[in-house]
């Protein structure tokens, strides 16, 4: 049994090349989570249904990737990727709803706030689903880079 093989793959590798992109992915998830909580809890914008689904994908990324960073555990990428992928899909769909490409009648937004409402914007210009899509895209790219570096 060689000593390096499992260690380099799974954890506690001090100079793991994947650590920096993993950190960037986690940082994006952390900032997005803080931002979502600020909009919802401090500014009092009620999250619509699609926003909630994106939160469900985004919030655990902070913990999953955070644990991965702590243990320099490459496997965390595997568990984070499906979350980020699903979140990306919902964010993309939400953006289409917001821009009116897809009619809101297709999503269950009867109660609470509307997902296509102009209120789904930061400072009146930046649509929140676009921010969300950018964050999920960044996370996916960073995770992909991390995985590539871990393999080589």
């Amino acid at each position, binding site marked *: 049994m060689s000593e390096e093989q499992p260690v380099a793959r799974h954890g506690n590798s001090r100079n793991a090349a994947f650590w920096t992109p993993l*950190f960037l992915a986690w940082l994006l998830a952390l900032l997005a989570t*803080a931002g979502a909580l*600020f909009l919802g809890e*401090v*500014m*009092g914008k009620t999250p619509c249904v699609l926003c909630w689904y994106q939160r469900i994908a985004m919030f655990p990324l902070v913990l999953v990737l955070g644990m991965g*960073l*702590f243990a*320099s555990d490459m496997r965390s990428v595997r568990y984070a990727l499906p979350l980020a992928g699903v979140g990306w899909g919902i964010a993309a769909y939400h953006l289409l709803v917001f821009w009116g490409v897809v009619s809101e009648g297709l999503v269950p937004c009867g109660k609470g706030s509307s997902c296509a409402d102009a209120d789904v914007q930061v400072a009146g210009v930046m649509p929140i689903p676009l921010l969300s899509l950018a964050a999920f895209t960044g996370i996916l790219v960073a995770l992909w880079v991390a995985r590539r570096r871990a393999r080589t």
Partner: protein
Amino acid sequence: MSRKWVVLGTVAAVVLAFVAGVVVFTNRSNQEVKQAAQANSEALVRPHSPVFGNPAAKVTIVEFFDPSCETCRAFYPIVKQMVNASFGQVRLVVRYAPLHHGSDTAVKILEAARQQGKYWEALERALAAQPQWAAHDRPQPQMIWDLIGDIGLDMAKARANADGPAVAQVLRQDVADMQALKVDRTPGFFVNGTPLREFGEAQLKALVEQELKKASTP
């Protein structure tokens, strides 16, 4: 283990930034609400509004009220008690903030009862039974008619008045004032024109005490 410190330091920095953001945002919105209250002081009390307590009281609590709102229901006995215990020094002015679906209908019924001098009776009946008629997903404000059937109203007249122009005008004015004063949740309290920003029973009582002191030391 410097990487762990990088992670922990980042968490600390983001938490700090978040807290700073909360402070800045809260201050700014408090300022905005105060300015809105000062700039629109005439919008606080309109002659059409129901008044509970001594009309000449030194301290006026303006409450933006939604008959379907659970917290308004919970606050009703508290505010009533504050007025009753003040020996005529505190009065309550009720303004409407129909933020829930069906609240406007409830307000219309209450206002129709007011035209026959039965406002507080109707209000208390409606609030007591609020859990039955004010479910937010399926409000049935029409049920209030049955609840107030025996308080001595001319029901045919009341039903006609509820849809009349006078009641509609009250509702329109209150909603306009609610927006001008930036009231976005209920109950929205103002005490002698000062908005209650940190919500709570103790905070409301403290604000009233403060205004009472101000009023008694000229």
